[in-house]
């Protein structure tokens, strides 16, 4: 609370003259009515101590005069409108949406941007009065309600105390919508977005709540790794490593970029970046083994999370493929263009031949041919083929299905667009107990018996993944669709063969973004798994339904998990230009609408004139009472 200020200080000038008038009036006193009495003999005794002849003696004893002056002073001071700037919320409901994304870890302000944001949030929480309500939403890759609407300030403050930053990309839209939904139906609600503004543009929202943007951060001094990939061109002996950097600082920056394969340094170079400019660096590196590449940037900047990036060096892809079926030119051609792949063909396999084939070939593809025996180890792709119930069982026939959604994150479907694929007819697949449906047809008309499928969705692509076995099933005949004619087909096939060929390929490595939820299949016998976090901490996880769900990859770094005998790991890096651009946003727009900014509104004028008026009234009442008591 700041010092006392006066809205109309000139009013105080009136105090002196008015006080003087009161005193003079008191001294002059009112004219008394003369009354003749027989004798003042008795009165003399009655009023002896009330008589005061000297004016100053009167002043000295007159409590009445003091009360009159007090009332005058209170009124005049009230007219001067004294106020203090108090930390006061303008609304009765304050929803604090606090950005905890990677950029908030920037150290351009004392502590970090998050600490600064927490200080602002604390100010809001502390300014809440008893009748106010507050809620706290932390927003990283997703919004999360840390404290639902409550009148308990201590809950808000302790939640703020516990709040830690993440390396996630900020999805402020999610946080804002969550905050607005909390504030909905509350009168005089305000949603405070406390952030540095390092997030994508926010959409227009229609809400009765007021949105205010409180910005944190001071400067943009950051060099970031925005892309990092390693690939080996077909036939080449060396991997091509591709790094893209960007300097978000307004000055020229120097840094050292080092590339590690696992923990072995394979290259390091000094790089100069112009102010606000990006740069692409490429390396050719002879990497014999599959593994994890790490790019590290040594730069004197404010954000560390984007100074490291990971890339996979994939193991050699499947080299030998057996195509079982009546012959499919499209499939064969697509397979033949895959680099370093040998394709063998046969029309059908017996059970015994199949078991040998699973051992001999990296991937066996059954095209419109029954699978004679499920594989014990190895990889199988089934195109309109059945016989392996753990993967999928054929369901009812679906006419002209359209694939409405698919798992874009799955390695087999990455970069593939299935939405426009025309399919004449297909079979809805029933995924096995451990298999997952990767693509669904929506709005399909089932001609089979199961007309009652509520969602109206039919699984079209199913994947099965175990340590020793992988399978992928397509629910339709490629010849009944235009998929082979589409650009996505070779990509799908390449992805699928690569993913299937990785089975049993040693360590499982994935590179993901912070905050992504990972679903990892566990061996049947495993009940628990333990994850070693990048900071050295450990987290125990339960296996549920053969799957381990890990939703705590909040930090950049390498996570290791041992489940069963297989070590698995995944690397998390940021690669988000929104987060790396640390230039603090001074204003915020919801769609085209500008949001009020700043902390100023947190401070409200607290006026004292009502109290002063009350004091004047009390003084006058006291004076009146005293007057009638004394005389």
């Amino acid at each position, binding site marked *: 609370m700041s010092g006392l200020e006066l809205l109309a200080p000139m009013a105080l000038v009136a105090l002196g003259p008015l006080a003087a008038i009161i005193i003079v009036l008191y001294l002059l006193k009112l004219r008394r009515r*003369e*009354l003749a*009495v*027989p004798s003042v003999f008795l009165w003399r005794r009655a009023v002896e101590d009330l008589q005061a002849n000297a004016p100053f003696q009167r002043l000295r004893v007159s409590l009445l005069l003091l009360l009159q002056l007090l009332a005058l002073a209170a009124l005049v001071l009230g007219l001067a409108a004294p106020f203090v700037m108090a930390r006061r919320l303008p609304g009765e409901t304050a929803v604090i949406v606090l950005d905890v994304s990677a950029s908030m870890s920037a150290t351009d302000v004392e502590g970090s941007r998050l600490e600064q944001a927490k200080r602002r949030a604390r100010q809001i929480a502390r300014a809440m009065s008893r009748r106010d309500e507050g809620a706290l939403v932390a927003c990283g890759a997703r919004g999360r309600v840390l404290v639902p609407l409550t009148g308990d300030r201590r809950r808000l403050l302790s939640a703020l105390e516990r709040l830690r930053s993440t390396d996630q990309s900020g999805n402020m839209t999610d946080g804002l919508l969550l905050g607005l939904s909390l504030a909905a139906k509350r009168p005089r609600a305000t949603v405070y977005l406390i952030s540095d503004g390092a997030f994508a543009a926010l959409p227009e929202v229609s809400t009765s709540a007021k949105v205010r943007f409180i910005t944190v951060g001071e400067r943009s001094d950051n060099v970031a790794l925005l892309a990092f990939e390693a690939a080996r061109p077909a036939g080449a002996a060396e991997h091509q490593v591709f790094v893209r950097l960007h300097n978000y600082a307004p000055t020229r920056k120097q840094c050292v970029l080092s590339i590690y394969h696992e923990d072995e340094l394979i290259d390091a170079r000094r790089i100069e970046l112009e102010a606000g400019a990006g740069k692409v660096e490429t390396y050719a590196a002879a990497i014999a083994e599959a593994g994890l590449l790490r790019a590290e940037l040594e730069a004197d900047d404010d954000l560390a999370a984007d100074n490291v990036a990971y890339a996979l060096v994939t193991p050699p892809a499947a080299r030998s493929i057996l195509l079982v079926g009546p012959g499919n030119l499209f499939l064969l051609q697509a397979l033949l263009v895959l680099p370093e792949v040998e394709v063998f063909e046969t029309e059908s396999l017996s059970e015994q031949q199949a078991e040998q084939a699973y051992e001999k070939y990296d991937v066996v593809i059954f095209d419109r041919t029954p699978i004679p025996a499920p594989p014990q180890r190895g990889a199988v792709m089934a195109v309109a083929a059945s016989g392996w119930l753990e993967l999928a069982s054929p369901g009812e026939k679906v006419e002209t299905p359209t694939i409405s959604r698919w798992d874009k994150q799955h390695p087999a479907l990455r970069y593939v667009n299935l939405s426009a694929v025309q399919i004449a007819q297909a079979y809805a697949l029933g995924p096995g107990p451990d298999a997952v449906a990767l693509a669904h047809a929506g709005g399909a008309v089932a001609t089979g018996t199961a007309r009652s499928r509520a969602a109206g969705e039919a699984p079209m692509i199913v994947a099965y993944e175990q340590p020793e076995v992988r399978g992928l099933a397509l629910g339709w005949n490629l010849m009944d669709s235009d998929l082979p004619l589409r650009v996505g087909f070779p990509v799908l096939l390449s992805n699928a063969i690569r993913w299937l060929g990785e089975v049993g390929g040693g360590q499982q490595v994935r590179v993901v973004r912070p905050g992504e939820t990972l679903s990892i299949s566990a061996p049947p016998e495993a009940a628990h798994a333990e994850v070693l976090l990048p900071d050295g901490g450990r987290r125990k996880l339960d296996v549920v339904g053969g799957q381990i769900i890990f939703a705590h990859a909040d930090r950049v770094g390498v996570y290791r998990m041992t489940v069963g005998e297989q070590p698995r790991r995944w690397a998390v890096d940021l690669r988000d230009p929104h987060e790396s651009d640390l230039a603090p946003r001074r204003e915020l727009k919801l769609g085209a609408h500008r949001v009020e900014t700043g902390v100023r509104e947190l401070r409200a004028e607290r006026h004292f004139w009502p109290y002063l008026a009350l004091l004047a009234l009390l003084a006058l009442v006291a004076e009146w009472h005293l007057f009638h008591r004394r005389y």
Partner: protein
Amino acid sequence: MEFADFRGYSPGDDLRYLDWNAFARLQRLFLKLFLEEEDLHVYVLLDASRSMDFGRPTKFEWGVQAAAALGYIGLCGGDRVQLLSHAQGRGESSRQYRGRGCAPEMFDWLSALEPDGSTDLAAAAEWFLRTAPAPGIVFVISDLLTAEWEAAISRLAAAKGDCCFLQAFSREEFQPSMHGDLKLVDSETEDERELTMGASVLRRYMTSRDEFLGAVRAACHRYGFSYLFAVTDESVEDVILRSLRRLGVIG
């Protein structure tokens, strides 16, 4: 001389009063006792100062009525009645009246009185002692609102005879109903007192009044005088006939 009673003879008694007829009949000596009848002097001393000229009726009017009543009772009882009025530096006295026939003259004398001047009861008492021809019963009718009230009582103690004080207050004096900011002016001395009437001041006045009346009553009792307090809106008859009779002042 009027026969009153007998008593036994004791040696030394005046032989002239022996009842020889009784001795002849009873062979015992009895002495005849006689009651000597004497004229009783009744004095009514009325305070005629300006302070008496207040109230409704005024204390002076009330005092005149009371003096008339007392005088008339005296005349009817065959007493010698003399009325006196006194204010500062001024004393008047009537002649001595005797017999009911003097009543109209006595009333006329009383009607001619006017209140004026300030109270000086001590001087009045001394004047009375000087002028009173014979001891008798003295009725003093006054408001006694003077600082020398006690001196006046003590002087009268020197008078041979009985004394009765009738202190009269107007209702306004007994229970003031005035209010507001006032400047009180003394009717006799023109002394001023400023005050603002309120509950507190009234309470103080009441206390002061009660203390004063109590002190006067106590002083009267100390000297063996009868004392009667009256407020002038009470009827004179009530006061004279009931209160004085109760006190045994009148028969």
